[in-house]
């Protein structure tokens, strides 16, 4: 059986697990939605759509939506379920089977991709009544979903490395907080060029900025291939690195 087929089988198991613990998905939806409402409530009057060029005629909710999508992507549960498998002994059961080590780490990430697609669709649909529309059309919709879900997979992959290294739920949970500032060292409230100079420099060095700008361009404008391309490039490079480190960690796992 090929590695992708093995990963698919394990991905199905992870999805079944997710459907049986629906409560674990509530924060993934609720918290990003909460931030969307609060941020829009705080700043919408400061940035009226008819007098704010960077909104391209849309509401401030449209500008904020990508932040919420990225926040949702950082709530992936793959790493915590992996720690459960390690602590409960099921991970050793999987390691004792003759399947590819890559498939073991890719299985959960496959499920994260499916969950990411679903959550992104739900969040975008919820945002529509707030005056948001996806300016880039059907292809833009697809690109938006793929980019947000892919980042969710990459984020989960980095968390899985922590889970494999520490084998502890507490340490993995704490580790995810290290990534949190990355979400906020971005042009979260205004475009990069309107940030203070130090923040602009910090945001320019932060890879998450380019994913956020890619997502934002898809919501606010026709497809800007240069901006969207940078977002996908960041996801691709980070994804390759994360999967490489995952595979190396599981191969050296004793």
């Amino acid at each position, binding site marked *: 059986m090929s590695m992708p087929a093995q990963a698919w*089988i394990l991905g199905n*198991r992870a999805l*079944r*697990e997710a459907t*049986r613990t629906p409560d674990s998905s509530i924060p993934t939806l609720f918290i990003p939605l909460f931030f969307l409402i609060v941020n829009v409530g705080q700043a919408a009057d400061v940035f009226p759509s008819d007098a704010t060029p960077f909104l391209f005629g849309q509401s401030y909710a449209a500008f904020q939506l990508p932040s919420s999508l990225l926040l949702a992507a950082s709530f992936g549960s793959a790493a915590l379920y992996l720690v459960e498998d390690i602590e409960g*002994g099921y991970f*050793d*059961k999987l390691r004792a089977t003759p399947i590819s080590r890559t498939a073991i780490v890719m299985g959960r990430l496959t499920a994260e991709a499916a969950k990411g697609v679903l959550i992104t669709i739900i969040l975008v649909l919820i945002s529509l009544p707030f005056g948001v529309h996806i300016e880039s059309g059907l292809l833009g919709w697809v690109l938006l979903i793929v980019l947000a879900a892919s980042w969710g997979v990459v984020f989960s992959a980095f968390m899985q490395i922590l889970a494999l290294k520490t084998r502890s739920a507490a340490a993995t949970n704490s580790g995810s907080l290290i990534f949190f500032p990355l979400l906020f060292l971005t042009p979260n409230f205004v475009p990069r060029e309107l940030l203070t100079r130090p923040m602009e420099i910090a945001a320019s060095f932060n890879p998450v900025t380019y994913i956020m700008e890619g997502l934002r361009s898809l919501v606010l404008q026709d497809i800007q291939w240069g901006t969207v391309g940078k977002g996908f490039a960041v996801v691709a490079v980070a994804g390759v690195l994360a999967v490489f480190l995952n595979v190396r960690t599981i191969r050296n796992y004793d």
Partner: protein
Amino acid sequence: MTLAIEAHQLVKRYSGRGGSDVEAVRGVDLEVAEGEVFGFLGPNGAGKSTTVRMLTTLMSITSGTARVAGVDVAAEPDRARKQIGVALQEAGLDPRQTGRELLILQCRLFGQSKGAAVARSSELLALVDLEDAADRRVKTYSGGMKRRLDLASALVHEPSVLFLDEPTTGLDPASRLSVWEEMRRINGRGTTVFLTTQYLEEADQLCNRLAIIDEGRIVREGTPAELKAELRRRKKLKRNPTLDEVFLDATGRSRERAAGEVQEVSA
């Protein structure tokens, strides 16, 4: 004699804190014949589980060689995994799946088609008497049921060698008896069983031969009868010693010291 397990000078060394090395297994030699039930006894921390983890490809080998079913476990781990069934100390089960789902998944991971996996899982559920609970989630199972399911999941691919690491620890006498029956039945079909246990009565009942490991080294090896006879001769005893006396003699432990490490049970 065809060997199912063959280990030569097996060593596992960990890097301890402060740069000092800890040797958990210190040059273990083992030869287990095909079709045997081989008992591997030792106090807590003696190196039993570490040895099992090395033999089952779950842990790297610092030095030495190990072959299971003729396959070098370090050089060809995937080939070895196809020959090995493993049920470790903690029943490694996913509590959110049903027993049937878990077995089907395990069959699929050993390369079986969906249809074959469904058929094999039904066969195994019947074998371990879990048909009635097959579609319940594993988290609702009792300890004994979990052990039996774990055993079944180790058998999906009809392994030639089955490693059972303390399979009855924590079970009530009835569940323990049922695991013993399964073990005998599996061995009766020709599967070699490598059993680690802290229960000396269990080893006496089930094992053709056994080895006692202490502080990472094998200190006794033979059939239960041979080990008892050797102790009787050496100590000039008037009666046949029990296996726990053999164990205490081999590990240099007093009854008091061993009380917390080894338990004698009857089931």
